């Protein structure tokens, strides 16, 4: 193992490993290591310790049998520790919290299987499940169960979907054919990832912005070689080729620097913030600045300053608010 493992955590891990291996006699060493989340040499070292352990007396008949000859793992004579230890607090917590979050997501997950699994798990966890109610993950609801269910049908039957979709940045509704690849929740929001035939590229669609979806008779045929797209924290990825824009944020609009990936953020003592970011779509930036009502000021480039001023003037022409506060 790359990181240091204390004797006690190793004991804990091995007490889980033994029952797992007992039920998988003859398993391939490489497979076992991968599924147990450790290296092959670690598994071998663990087995070397195991066969020195056994019942009091420690005569050969008392000891655990462990072998890995020819790359196949066998563990025997380990009846006393052939059952795993009860779930610990964090173990119960992790599964219960995630299952409850999924159960509250209608249309997307197998509700009935989740409820059954949760009931059994809570029963088995006993006291360890106490406190799991205090930790909660609230996943966004897809607007419409039926819509979510149709997306799932497209996924499981590998069929092409026809979407009416409102993009957040441009606030436009477009229609497109998409080959669904997966539905993922990132930071609480649900997205459909798919091959978009309109863009001829991989795209993420927020489920709550899909207006309607139709499952087509056509099979989904995404390209075999898909561009690499790691989904880490946050879905938006700035592109170094995009235009660089400098903004000044008033204290009341400083949240913008927390929500939008920036290249540089410098807070000032008075609570205002200067921020540099990459902007792919000028239209998106104009909308942001108009929404913040003067709290966000474009510093440069000059062309963007002009664009914002003209957009504000055009908006005012339609909303002069005669007799208002002037």
């Amino acid at each position, binding site marked *: 193992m790359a990181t240091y493992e204390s*004797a*006690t955590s190793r*004991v804990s*891990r091995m*007490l889980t490993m033994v*029952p*797992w291996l*007992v039920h998988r006699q003859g398993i391939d060493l490489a497979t076992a290591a991968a599924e147990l989340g450790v290296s092959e040499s670690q598994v071998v070292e663990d087995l070397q310790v195991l066969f*020195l*352990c056994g019942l*009091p007396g420690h005569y050969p008949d008392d000891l655990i049998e462990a072998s890995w000859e020819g790359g196949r793992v066998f563990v025997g004579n380990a009846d006393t520790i052939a059952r*795993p230890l*009860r779930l*610990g607090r964090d173990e119960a917590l*992790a599964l219960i919290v*995630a*299952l409850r*979050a*999924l159960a509250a997501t209608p249309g997307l*997950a*197998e509700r009935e*299987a*989740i409820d059954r*699994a949760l009931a*059994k798990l809570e029963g088995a966890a006993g006291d360890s499940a106490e*406190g799991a109610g*205090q930790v*909660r*993950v*609230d*996943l*966004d609801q897809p607007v419409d169960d039926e819509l979510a269910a149709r997306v*799932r049908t497209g*996924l*499981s039957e590998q069929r092409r979907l026809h979407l009416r979709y409102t993009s*957040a940045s441009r*606030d436009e*509704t477009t229609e497109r054919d998409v080959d669904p690849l997966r*539905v993922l929740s990132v*930071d609480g*929001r649900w997205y459909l990832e798919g091959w978009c035939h309109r863009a001829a590229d991989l795209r993420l669609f927020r489920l709550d*912005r899909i207006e309607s979806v139709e499952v087509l008779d056509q099979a989904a045929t995404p390209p075999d070689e898909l561009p690499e797209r790691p*989904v*880490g*924290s946050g879905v938006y990825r700035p592109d170094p080729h995009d235009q660089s824009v400098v903004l000044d944020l008033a*204290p009341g609009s400083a949240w913008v620097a927390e929500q939008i990936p920036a290249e540089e953020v410098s807070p000032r003592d008075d609570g205002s913030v200067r921020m540099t970011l990459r902007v792919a779509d000028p239209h998106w930036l*104009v909308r942001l*600045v*108009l*929404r*913040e*009502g*003067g709290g966000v000021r474009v510093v440069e480039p000059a062309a963007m300053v002009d664009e914002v*001023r003209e*957009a*504000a003037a055009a*908006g005012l022409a339609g*909303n002069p608010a005669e007799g*208002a*506060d002037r």
Partner: protein
Amino acid sequence: MAKSASTGVSPATAKTERLLNLVIALLHTRQPLSKAKLRQAVPDYAQGSVEAFERMFERDKDELRALGIPLRTEPIDAFFDDEPGYRIDQREYALPEIDFAPDELAVLGLAARAWSQASLAGPAAQALRKLDAAGVVRDESSVAGIEPLLHTPDPAFEPVRDAVLTRTPITFDYRGGSGDLAHRRVQPWGLTSWHGRWYLTAHDLDRDAPRVFRLDRVVGAPKRSGRPGEYAVPSDLDTVAMIRRSTGDEPPATTAARLLLRDGAAASLRRRGTPLPGEEAPEGWTALELPTGSLPRLAREVCAAGADVRVLAPPELGSLVAERLRAVAAAHGGGEA
């Protein structure tokens, strides 16, 4: 003869072996084992002096208990309780036999994977290995292509989670919305991920009131400031409702606004409104009515749409929009004076 243990291995490996032998001996016995018997049963214990053995056993006992192993201390003889004995009850130790159906294991796998990039990745994977010890084949088809991913980027996550679960008061430095730094003393109630952010809900001891804290605004490491379990969490706690209130989430609709929308634009306003066929609209525009709970919030959205939306009513909304747009124009060298 018995295999001699622990020769030529590292101290850590010798300890692993000793602890495993101890667990096996204590699980195997029906009668509590005296210290003398334990010293015979575990090879490592027999090697040093009696004093060294006693010290080693005391430590081992504590460490096994910390792992969650229910190591009992009981009188060896019910009539003469002068000498304690030790054992582990198999029924207390072992995870109960549970038969998970293939589709249940599949959703458990999904739940475990949700943490794969987050703080509880290790415990989640370990739990799944325990539940799946019997090697039931999973039926993954029901969850194919569904991937919830949780993230725990905040360094405060671990200590706060611990405080919530053990009901231990903590103190920490907190950066408020306006950027000011303050020291807070709280009784943690709940830890909630909402819209992708982690929030601590707690009773604030200085303000003597419930408060909501964003974990990404906790500065430095929270410190314990009391004993575990020294307060109770309200039974009717609704953390999501508390967070909604604190973030000023959209209140229920109380008024209706009437807007003109340019055709093909402002899709997100359009989908929440209902068309007004009676209202007169210029060519290329649609009139619609939109329920809202907050005029300032709606004004922000109308502003974002710029020249594509016009306010018909109420006049307060029109003033708010004009006022905000005028501020934007002024900030960008506009001629409004």
